[in-house]
């Protein structure tokens, strides 16, 4: 709840007063105090940890993750997630399937023995032991303290070694000039990119765009480290799978019913 409230107050603040760094800090301090005073009730935005104040750095206390239930997805549902990601992050189909970026994609699976068919959304798995981070020569491919794997496009030299290393084919190389990117999702020619788990939303205490677009309960976003979170509880109680679990990369994205 607190995140919502904070959002409202922030919006109100814009209408009435100038953005004042000191005042803002005071406000945030106030909200932190409120949190301390009334734990439990206000601590959770949506069954998750509190919203991080904007000036606070992320820590290893949280590790963001997803649980995707393949059984709850139709092809159209996955496409809705893809669309939501495109709208949120500004990548799109330009009619060049070989070179267009795809941060999230629909993978159609068919069990060769039983002919059973289903589909699921596939994207960066935000591994704890991410091969892309290990192989990157400049350290552009990095893992945030809260487990989100990102590309620092400021120091990415475009060598594509991370794309060679990623077991999930999660990364795309930007093959052309791009203009009018989304403000929160910079993307540029000659650099590599992938799903950011909508890090700009997560930092504001919101859910990634795909999670919002997915059918009810088909995608659960949350903190893997927080034992009380819905995600952690689910992972504890139901059978979940990791894609290419044999590689032992400890992905932050888990699946059900594959």
């Amino acid at each position, binding site marked *: 709840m607190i995140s919502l409230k904070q959002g409202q107050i922030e919006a109100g603040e814009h209408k009435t007063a*100038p*953005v004042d*760094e000191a005042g803002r800090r005071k406000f945030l301090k106030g909200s932190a105090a409120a949190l301390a005073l009334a734990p439990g009730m206000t601590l959770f935005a949506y069954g998750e940890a509190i919203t991080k104040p904007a000036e*606070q*750095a*992320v820590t290893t206390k949280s590790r963001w993750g997803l649980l995707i239930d393949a059984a709850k997805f139709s092809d159209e549902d996955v496409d809705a997630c893809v669309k939501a990601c495109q709208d949120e992050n500004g990548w799109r189909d330009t009619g060049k399937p070989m070179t267009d970026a795809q941060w999230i994609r629909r993978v159609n699976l068919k069990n060769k023995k039983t002919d059973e068919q289903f589909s699921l959304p596939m994207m960066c798995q935000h591994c704890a032991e991410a091969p892309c981070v290990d192989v990157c020569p400049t350290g552009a491919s990095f893992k945030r303290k809260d487990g989100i794997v990102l590309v620092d496009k400021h120091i990415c030299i475009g060598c594509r070694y991370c794309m060679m290393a990623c077991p999930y084919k999660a990364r795309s190389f930007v093959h052309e000039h791009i*203009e009018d990117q*989304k403000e*929160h999702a910079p993307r540029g020619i000659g650099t590599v990119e992938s799903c950011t788990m909508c890090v700009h939303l997560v*930092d504001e205490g919101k859910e990634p765009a795909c999670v919002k677009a997915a059918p009810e309960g088909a995608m659960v976003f949350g903190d893997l480290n927080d034992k009380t979170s819905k995600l952690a509880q689910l992972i504890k109680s139901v059978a979940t799978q990791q894609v290419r679990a044999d590689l032992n990369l400890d992905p932050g994205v888990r699946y059900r019913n594959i």
Partner: protein
Amino acid sequence: MKIVLIMQKLIITLLGVAFIGVSLLASVGQASAQPEWMPNPPKAIGGQCDLDPKEMRKTHMTLLDHKRDQTMRDGIRTKKYSLKKCIACHAVKDKSNKCVTVKDERHFCRSCHDYAAVRIDCFDCHASRPEDSLNKATKAAGNSHDKLAGLSSIGKTGDTTDTTLRRFIAGEVK
């Protein structure tokens, strides 16, 4: 051989004359307040800058550099020194009331960087005009580069909120 020598002399002489001419022009230019060839960055529309413009001119690259690492690596998303805010405040509109991109030489950043011959790396990845300016239909022509001066009144009245900025960028206020 002789022709080559003559050509050489001619070129050297011409270069010399050109150099003296340019130096003369330069000294004349310095005499006046704001010579035309000096950078003349458009006024910001958002009011007070995060830092004194004189300081900003010197240190913006360091500030942005620092801020970018904080935002990207640590998720610190305060507005101070954020590129997003710079872009919004320093948006420049063309005759059709549209914010120009960095491709246009009237773009705020270019007005100086062209002069200093320093390549800007930011806009290969970052949008060079505010995102909001793309979502709304643009209004009739009006807010050309010259008229931007009047807009600083927004700042003077103390109204520097994002909302006002957004409305300006979207073409709702001038």
